[in-house]
């Protein structure tokens, strides 16, 4: 077993990691090479809860797959708990737990109990230990009373909780959670986040990927922002927010606002960025500007007569604002 020598305090170490994907044509010739990761570097300390955020296609899942030994890198190095992902596959897998987001990853036609027993055996958990641990896990994730039901009958939230139980069945040191709250209702997502906090309190190191900036801000001690295969920023959420400290955020809630109104706001002087959610009955428009409250009168006067502002707030910039600036520049 190879052991990377420096920095035993690091659970994850990534050095100049690159990954290229090759697409082949009908007759097998190479038609396109895509660079999913372009020389990324980061590390995660033991016991840390570390976030990896980025837009779709940024390279988060590719990074996770390499770190969990499901994919090999084209070049660069990656170490998990001091072990090389290229050489020490089975030892790494024994010591990490993985939660893949979404509906897949479970055997739907058997029960939760059967799923956990199966994975417990695959991970080599001593059968006597498993006999105690599995029911405890099911209780901890709130599935004890439905443990004998087929997983196909479970709601999405229940399946996600089972994913967490599955990831913990062999008591891993490092947990990799790939978008664990995606598609869950607010209650279900909150339960998962509480479990994540609890796992960290148990001393587990956690690498979390997520789309939800508030989740990264709430849970993570440090966050890396990845965009187009590169790490564009890496720091604590509060330090990342300082990247946008020069701006304030005006948040409007409106009736009847349209894309035309958003375009008008975008053209106002000193407006840095506008993010709008116009699909709901009540629209939300977030305007980033260094002027802050001074911009309000211009924004209000630009409102069409058939629309109405029902609420306006001046907010401190959030991690999402910092993230948008980082990935869009």
């Amino acid at each position: 077993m190879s052991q990377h020598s420096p920095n035993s305090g690091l659970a994850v170490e990534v050095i100049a990691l690159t990954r290229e994907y090759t697409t082949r044509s009908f007759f097998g010739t190479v038609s396109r090479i895509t660079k999913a990761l372009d020389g990324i570097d980061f590390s995660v300390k033991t016991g840390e809860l570390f976030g990896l955020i980025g837009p779709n296609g940024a390279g988060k899942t590719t990074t996770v797959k390499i770190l969990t030994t499901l994919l090999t890198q084209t070049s660069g190095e990656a170490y998990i708990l001091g072990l090389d992902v290229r050489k020490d596959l089975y030892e790494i897998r024994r010591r990490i737990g993985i939660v893949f987001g979404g509906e897949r990853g479970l055997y739907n036609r058997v029960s939760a109990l059967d799923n956990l027993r199966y994975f417990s055996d695959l991970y080599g958990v001593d059968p006597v230990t498993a006999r105690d641990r599995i029911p405890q896990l099911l209780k901890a994730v709130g599935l004890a009373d439905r443990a004998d039901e087929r997983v196909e009958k479970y709601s999405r939230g229940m399946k996600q909780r089972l994913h967490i139980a599955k990831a913990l069945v062999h008591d891993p040191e490092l947990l990799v959670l790939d978008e664990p709250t995606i598609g869950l209702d607010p209650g279900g997502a909150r339960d998962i986040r509480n479990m994540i906090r609890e796992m960290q309190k148990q001393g587990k190191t956690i690498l979390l990927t997520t789309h939800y900036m508030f989740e990264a801000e709430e849970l993570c001690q440090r966050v890396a922002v990845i965009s187009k295969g590169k790490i564009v920023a890496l720091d604590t959420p509060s330090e990342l927010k300082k990247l946008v400290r020069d701006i304030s955020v005006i948040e409007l809630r409106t009736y009847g606002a349209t894309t035309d109104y958003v375009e008008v706001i975008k053209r106002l002087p000193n407006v840095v960025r506008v993010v709008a959610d116009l699909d709901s009955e009540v629209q939300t428009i977030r305007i980033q500007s260094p002027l802050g409250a001074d911009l309000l009168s211009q924004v209000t006067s630009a409102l069409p007569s058939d629309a109405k502002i029902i609420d306006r707030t001046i907010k401190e910039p959030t991690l999402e604002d910092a993230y948008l600036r980082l990935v869009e520049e």
Partner: protein
Amino acid sequence: MKSTEQVSHSALGAGARLRMALRVFWGAFLFGRKGLIVWDSWEMWVMQIVITPIAQIGFFALLSIYLQYPSSVTQYIVVGNAIQSMSFAAVFAVANITSQDKWQGTLPSTMVTPANRIALFIGRAWFQVLLSALIAAAGLLYAATIFGVSFATADYLGIAVTVLLTSVAMTGFGLLISAVGLYMRTAMIVANIFLFVTLLLSGVNFPVSVLPAWLQPASWAIPLTYGTQAVRMAIAGSSLTALLPTLGWEALDALLVMGAGYVLFTGFENLSRKTGRFEEY
């Protein structure tokens, strides 16, 4: 963005509805070219059109030789299997439509549209009609070139019409089984059994008259039975006119099968809506 004017579906005239149905059919056909099985590599084509038909014909031909049957019997068996080899593409692959949609999670999205169901599923299956006809034609080519069946007096027009009609009819059977897949977990096992059943009942390896009398009506319910009979007649020199009675029965059988498929489809669609089984695979 301009909003599109919505017109009530029921307010459309017959002409407009037909145009919509044709549009659905064509779109489904183009989708069915790629959607059913992975045809995006040359290996799949070779497997379906060369290896599998030759293997199947060869197996039964060798069995006939081992049993020391006269060459006329061997040729009978070869031709029967040449036509039957279309069954995988016509029946199995088509029966997979609903199962595959369920697995991909696209069945609910499909069933919630107002698209004409006949146009939709026939469109998806139509590519398999062409493919299965091609496979049967290839099978007959192998019969002539590898297995020594003589086409000296063959009526090629009769063969072509028979192959195409049988292909359409067997695809109809595939659609019937696919309708079962709307409600049952998977139609594939039923389709698998049906493939075996055609070997037994459709005059592929021995005449229907060899079967017990009580089993023979089942044979004549399968379009392939008429197809194998008609192709043998055409190879022996019967003209298209002489084949018409047999082909007529096959066409009628196909219509009945498709009718039954439509009834089953509608019934199972309603049942799946009641029991929420569109997503179970």
